[in-house]
């Protein structure tokens, strides 16, 4: 540790930053109840899991280079690989990653000094490492091989002990997620200063609020389902075993009643990030602020009524129609967000910062995921592509093209606030180009192989699909490579990036109206939020930013000028 803990202000040009102290790296390895430390702990650990899960994806693509089983010892080994890939990406990467940005940014945006329950906050984070150990231990002992959806009886009667450890790990992660979400809801409801009215709240806070409500109401369903699964596996009960009077569809119903809303747990915060980034970097208010905020709530609500579209091929045929209709309805609030974002950048003065590029990339890719989502909702067409690569493509467009692009946008946007340093913009642009095109050529062709007849979760496939799969694998390696660029950029910028100053993007939300990184209690004086979190272009907002600049010293380096 000693070698990393470089004291700050060691370089001559950084003397102006003398006043702002960063926590030492060792502080991040300890128990801390400071939401900013916990945010970074969440973020760094989630990114580590992203790398592990990504390496597994590379393994999957390597296996699929040929139609035969060659890299893996057995089909079961391949099954366990994508099982753990999905589990890591969902439970250990995306969900904790949003807890990272939520933790760091939300109290600052609200003008609060910390989260409502700092101790609980730290506890929720520290549940993740043991849970990850349990899940990964299961992988190395006797891996779960029933997919992240773990349908019984494959996951009960036909799976090794790793499945039990998988369920235990997922259980712990669910508990962590519930605790974190309770904390967010209480913080957002109770910890706002009186000036921060609900309709002055930045949209990230709206999104985190909607997400947390979903998590508190839906995650217990996962906990209940996993409890029954564990009883079936360990105690000899037969809740999901037809031979013992159980019902295999019971699991699918409870599981998807959690897991469909969980999709919104994974993407709504990204939509919140998008509203922030697009507005700040195009210097224009969010178009239809209230509708964007309310549509988050709309998505959260409708999201609870669509779960059975994941069961279109197993549900009784007459029950499928209502779920098709509710699923299609979700397109409406999503469309509202999409058009509002376009309205936000339309006519603005767009700065092509890395954060903005990733936000625009999100817009461009998420629309494809949205269109394929409506196609999947259309029952007769879904029957054909259900459980095929079309579906794999769809959810990667939503969760990678959507969530991961938003994670990168958030990283480039808030890195200066977290570390006090700017990221390298040139590397950021290179990173964007590789990620965007790597992603597009990885996942777009998957639509086609799926429609042509390639089911998901297979290690062997028909030879005719080999050219498609080789194109996909090649692009996937490009996508995998792009991750190294951002890792290099983060490490380099952490030590050598230009000093950011309090408000490098000249943003109006409260997290920028304090030093970078903020002091332990966030604000030296009680912060006064500007009357409109996105009121760019008015004289009042210019005057407000002027006052802040004076309070926190010289305006910092603008992005793109180095």
């Amino acid at each position, binding site marked *: 540790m000693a070698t990393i803990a470089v004291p700050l202000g060691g370089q001559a040009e950084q003397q102006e930053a003398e006043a702002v102290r960063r926590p030492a790296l060792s502080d991040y390895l300890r128990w801390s109840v400071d939401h900013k430390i916990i945010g970074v702990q969440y973020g760094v650990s989630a990114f580590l899991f992203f790398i592990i899960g990504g390496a597994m994806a590379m393994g999957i693509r390597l296996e699929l280079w040929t139609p035969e*089983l060659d890299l893996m010892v057995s089909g079961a080994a391949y*099954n366990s690989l994508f099982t753990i890939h999905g589990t890591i990406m969902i439970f250990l990467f995306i969900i904790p990653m949003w807890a990272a940005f939520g933790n760091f940014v939300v109290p600052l945006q609200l003008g609060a000094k910390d989260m409502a329950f700092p101790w609980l906050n730290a506890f929720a984070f520290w549940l993740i490492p043991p849970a990850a150990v349990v899940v990964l231990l299961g992988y190395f002992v006797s891996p779960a*091989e*029933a*997919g992240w959806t773990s*349908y019984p*009886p494959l996951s009960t009667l036909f799976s090794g002990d790793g499945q039990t450890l998988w369920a235990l790990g997922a259980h712990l992660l669910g508990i962590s997620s519930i605790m974190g979400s309770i904390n967010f809801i209480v913080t957002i409801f109770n910890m706002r200063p009186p000036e921060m009215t609900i*309709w002055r709240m930045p949209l990230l806070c709206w999104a985190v609020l909607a997400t947390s409500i979903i998590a508190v109401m839906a995650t217990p369903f996962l906990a209940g389902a996993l409890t029954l699964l564990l009883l079936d596996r360990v105690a000899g009960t037969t809740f999901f075993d*037809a*031979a013992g*009077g159980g019902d295999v569809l019971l699991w699918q119903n409870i599981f998807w009643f959690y897991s469909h809303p969980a999709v919104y747990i994974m993407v709504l915060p990204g939509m919140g990030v998008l509203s922030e980034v697009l507005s700040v970097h*195009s210097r*224009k*208010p969010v*178009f*239809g602020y209230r*509708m964007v905020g309310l549509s988050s709530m709309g998505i959260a609500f409708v999201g609870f009524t669509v779960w059975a579209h994941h069961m279109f091929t197993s549900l009784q045929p007459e029950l499928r129609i209502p779920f*098709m209709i509710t699923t*299609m309805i979700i*397109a*409406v609030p999503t469309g*509202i967000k999409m*058009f509002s974002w376009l309205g936000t950048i*339309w*006519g*603005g*003065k*767009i700065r*092509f910062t890395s954060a903005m590029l990733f936000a*625009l990339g999100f*817009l*461009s890719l998420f*629309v*494809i995921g949205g*269109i*394929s989502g*409506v*196609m999947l*909702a*259309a*029952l*007769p*067409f879904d*029957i*054909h592509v*259900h*459980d095929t690569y079309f579906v794999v493509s769809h959810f990667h467009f939503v969760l990678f093209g959507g969530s991961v692009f938003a994670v990168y946008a958030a990283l480039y946007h808030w890195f200066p606030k977290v570390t006090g340093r700017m990221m390298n913009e040139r590397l950021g642009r290179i990173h964007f180009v590789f990620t965007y095109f790597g992603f597009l050529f990885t996942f777009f062709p998957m*639509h*086609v192989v799926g*429609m*042509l*007849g390639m*089911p*998901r*979760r297979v*290690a*062997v496939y028909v030879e005719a699909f080999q050219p498609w799969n080789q194109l996909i694998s090649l692009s996937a390696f490009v996508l995998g490579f792009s991750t190294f660029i951002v890792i290099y950029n983060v490490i380099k910028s952490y030590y050598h990036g230009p000093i950011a100053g309090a408000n490098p993007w000249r943003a109006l939300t409260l997290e920028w109206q304090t030093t970078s990184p903020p002091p332990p209690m966030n604000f030296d004086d009680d912060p006064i939020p500007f*009357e409109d979190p996105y009121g760019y*272009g008015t004289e009042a907002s*210019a005057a407000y930013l002027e006052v802040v600049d004076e309070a926190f010293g010289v305006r910092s380096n603008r992005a793109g000028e180095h």
Partner: protein
Amino acid sequence: MENRGSNTPSISPAAVVVAAVFLLVSVIGINWFTTFVPVVLPEQASAESKSVDELFYILMIIGGVVFFLIQGMLLISVIAFRARPGDEGDGPTYHGNPLLEIVWTIIPALVVVFLAVVSFNIWTQNTEPKAAINMVEGQSISINVTGARYAWTHQYVTERFDPDGNQIVINSGPELHTYIGQNVDLTLQTQDVIHSYWVPAMRVKQDLLPGDPRRGGRPTQLRFTPIRVEDRSYPARYPIVCAELCGDGHGRMQGTVIVYEDESQFLDQFYEPAIYAILNPPADPVLRGEIEIQNYICNSCHILDSLGWTSTTGPSLNGVADRAGERVPGQTAEEYIATSIWNSGAFRVPGYDQQMAAFGPDVMEATNVMSPEQLYSIVAYLCTQGEQSDCDMENASAAIPDAIQTVFGYEVDITFGMEDDEDEAMLEADAASDDESGASG
């Protein structure tokens, strides 16, 4: 929020022009895209596939308009509204336009309603129960599909009867035989986990769900009607795929739909030969056994290279005759094999946790009924599966009936199937031709 709407600019004429241009581009783009449709979907081999693909076209047109509209707006924005070098100013303070917001809420809502109605119509049309299903020779028969790790089994419960009055059941293994215009209605059952029966060319898919065996399982239905595909020679073959993760060999779990040109071709090339072979078994017990064993669902669980079986739920049958003599002390190879078929609960091969299904003269399931004569021929066939068989093959016609007598006390009629002595040569020729026509029963 006082600023809201204070300096609302009107929608500029330039934006209208640009939007019009992009609508035009999108229409051209979609036209161009639809030329790829034959490349992205399999052949249309069923009546259902026509309407599903129509829905796909509609979705592509609507999706295409949305796609080009949004990507176009995005492209215009990043070109037209980029901040010029040195421009540090802000954009206009424009908070929204309620009319526009209502428009882009209502229009998608209407589109979605339209899509729901279209999908609903196609769905009801495709799933409407059809009157004459599985018609063969003017009668409606049942076709049962069994999914087991990792093989499909198709069984035709015919309306024909053998001389003993038993209903004849054709087992065509991983192949579904049908003909153009036949309204196929499959009853799907699984032996173990959830599988999903998918025929991409037919655009149909249905999960197989484990149910309580005491209540007859949990059968599901799948319906489709094959149609003629241009430039196809018949019989045409289409793949069957398992679409629900079922374990190690999920990717290998495949089958074939064989579509004949019409009912007479179906009868000539599949149905009649299969029934003839069942009614006229070859005299040689080994040859007869090779046919008999394929009438049962053994392939659902076992590997046997000679017959192309791939399932790994149960122990492999490759070389079973080499091992059978040493498994249980005091039991001959013949006795061991006979016991493990009729009294399958007697022992379990180490490493396999699933109990094999019961076969015998008085089991409940009609498809699992097995007479002593059938057992005799199946044991005789299995005795040939090995390099130096433990069985006494010189005296098979005595050793195997003796074994069955010892273990179960049944007398075996070894003259079974030999009544038509004069046809013997012809029968053997039939058996050979059956082998050529694949795994047909």
